[in-house]
């Protein structure tokens, strides 16, 4: 397979973008990535988007975005895997180039959530409609169930979960693209409104509009490229049951574990070699479980791992330097691409006030539903 690299990245500001449409934000991020890469054309466009149909009543997103980007008639299509749509778009872009079918691919992710009639309903379509959602469960509810089971079995505390939110807001305060750019305290989290016990409002990622884009190309082109670029050395996706109740162990996210193992193997690295990671902290408990599944810490110790500061900006393995889904925001279909944009910035020394030192290998982990899809990518600078 051919080597694949990222040579340019772009983002919109994340947040409630009332004055902008889905096409505006996609094109803004895409133009920024194309300009950053300095390319004069792309061979193909892949758009990660969870639910244009339910959020803005617009399907057929691929061709629409190609048009508004002035790129008709290049092939352009949308890929969907719930909140992992962005990660899957990146994986698909990599596959196009690795196979030799394309040389330069624009991989974008976009979601315009604030236009929706019923956001809770749209998000819930990522779960089993007939046997879960039918009974009145919500996405905070799924992760609350994981949290209760994790607390019971491993002694994970309410406070440890709150620490994830505090850390990610602190990182978000250093990110000009983040939806929330202010620090919060443990008390803010612990006293916020209960949404689904034990999770409170400040354990949850917000509703966000936003877009992210990457320009991918073959290794041959990247090596001649004037800017610093980053190669993708690991890429994998795994799936699990859509229904949480069909899983043998509700304290685990097996697909995260399996996708990480596959990506480590492809990249020929161990978890200890990862210098910086962007992971799918849709709820605080998710980041704790993901730490365990990625092999950063042993099973059951994820709470202690955050408490001891290992994942802080100045810690051994900084996690969600961008602010994560919690503070940077979570425009669902854009998230997987935005995670890779942050790693690209970190590995090329462009992460501003949140830049970590000596970043050698970066990892992204993007998840759909309550872990029915998980996508992991591993990156290394040239």
């Amino acid at each position: 397979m051919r080597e694949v690299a990222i040579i340019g990245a772009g983002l919109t500001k994340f947040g409630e973008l009332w004055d902008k449409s889905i096409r505006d934000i996609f094109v803004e991020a895409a133009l920024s990535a194309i300009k950053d890469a300095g390319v004069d054309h792309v061979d193909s466009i892949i758009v990660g988007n969870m639910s244009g149909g339910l959020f803005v009543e617009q399907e057929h997103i691929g061709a629409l975005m190609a048009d508004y980007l002035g790129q008709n008639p290049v092939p352009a299509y949308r890929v969907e895997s719930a909140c992992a749509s962005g990660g899957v778009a990146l994986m698909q872009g990599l596959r196009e180039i690795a196979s030799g079918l394309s040389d330069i691919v624009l991989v974008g992710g976009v979601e315009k959530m604030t236009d929706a009639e019923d956001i809770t309903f749209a998000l819930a379509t990522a779960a089993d409609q007939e046997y879960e959602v039918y009974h009145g469960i919500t996405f905070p509810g799924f992760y609350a169930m994981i949290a209760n089971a994790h607390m019971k079995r491993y002694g994970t505390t309410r406070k440890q979960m709150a620490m994830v939110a505090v850390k990610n807001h602190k990182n978000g305060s250093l990110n000009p693209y983040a939806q929330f750019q202010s620090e919060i305290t443990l008390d803010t989290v612990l006293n916020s409104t209960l949404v689904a016990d034990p999770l409170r409002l400040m354990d949850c990622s917000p509703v966000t509009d936003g877009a992210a884009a990457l320009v991918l190309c073959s290794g041959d082109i990247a090596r001649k490229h004037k800017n610093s670029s980053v190669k993708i050395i690991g890429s994998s996706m795994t799936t699990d049951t859509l229904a949480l109740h069909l899983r043998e162990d509700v304290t685990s996210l097996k697909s995260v574990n399996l996708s990480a193992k596959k990506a480590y193997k492809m990249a020929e690295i161990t978890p200890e070699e990862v210098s910086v990671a962007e992971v799918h902290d849709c709820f605080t408990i998710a980041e704790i479980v993901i730490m365990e599944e990625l092999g950063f810490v042993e099973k059951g110790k994820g709470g202690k791992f955050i408490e001891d500061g290992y994942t802080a900006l100045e810690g051994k393995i900084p996690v969600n330097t961008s602010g994560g889904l919690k503070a940077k925001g979570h425009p669902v279909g854009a998230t997987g691409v935005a995670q890779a944009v942050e790693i690209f910035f970190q590995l090329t020394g462009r992460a501003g006030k949140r830049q970590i030192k000596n970043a050698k290998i970066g990892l992204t982990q993007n998840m759909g539903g309550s872990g029915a899809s998980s996508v992991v990518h591993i990156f290394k600078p040239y």
Partner: protein
Amino acid sequence: MSIPKYWREIPQRYRLEALKCKKCGKIFFPPRLICSNCKTQEFENIRLKEEGKIVTYTIIRVPPKQFNGQAPYPVAIVELDDGVRIMGQITDANPEEIEIGKKVRVVFRKIQEQGHAGIINYGYKFILK
């Protein structure tokens, strides 16, 4: 929710009808066409046990639109005595009484309704034993 969409699931929602793989014995609820364990496509019809224990739970405080007025309500994953796990609400209980590991029994209840003129949806809930 369209009427056929609701009607199709009645055997499961009203009677806990499931399929047991004739080769490996794995039980599937809801039914499916191929065993995910041994890939066999031959099953026998069974009904699930109506008692079990709480694997995990939450209390929904911010409900989906069609459950407005019902919150707060508990939702749990229950492992029935035949080893099959299902999700549903726990009814007739105070949130403080609910704990992981507690025994429950399946009951038949109204789940939701489709507005003032639409159909009423029924199914299983759990009560503490």
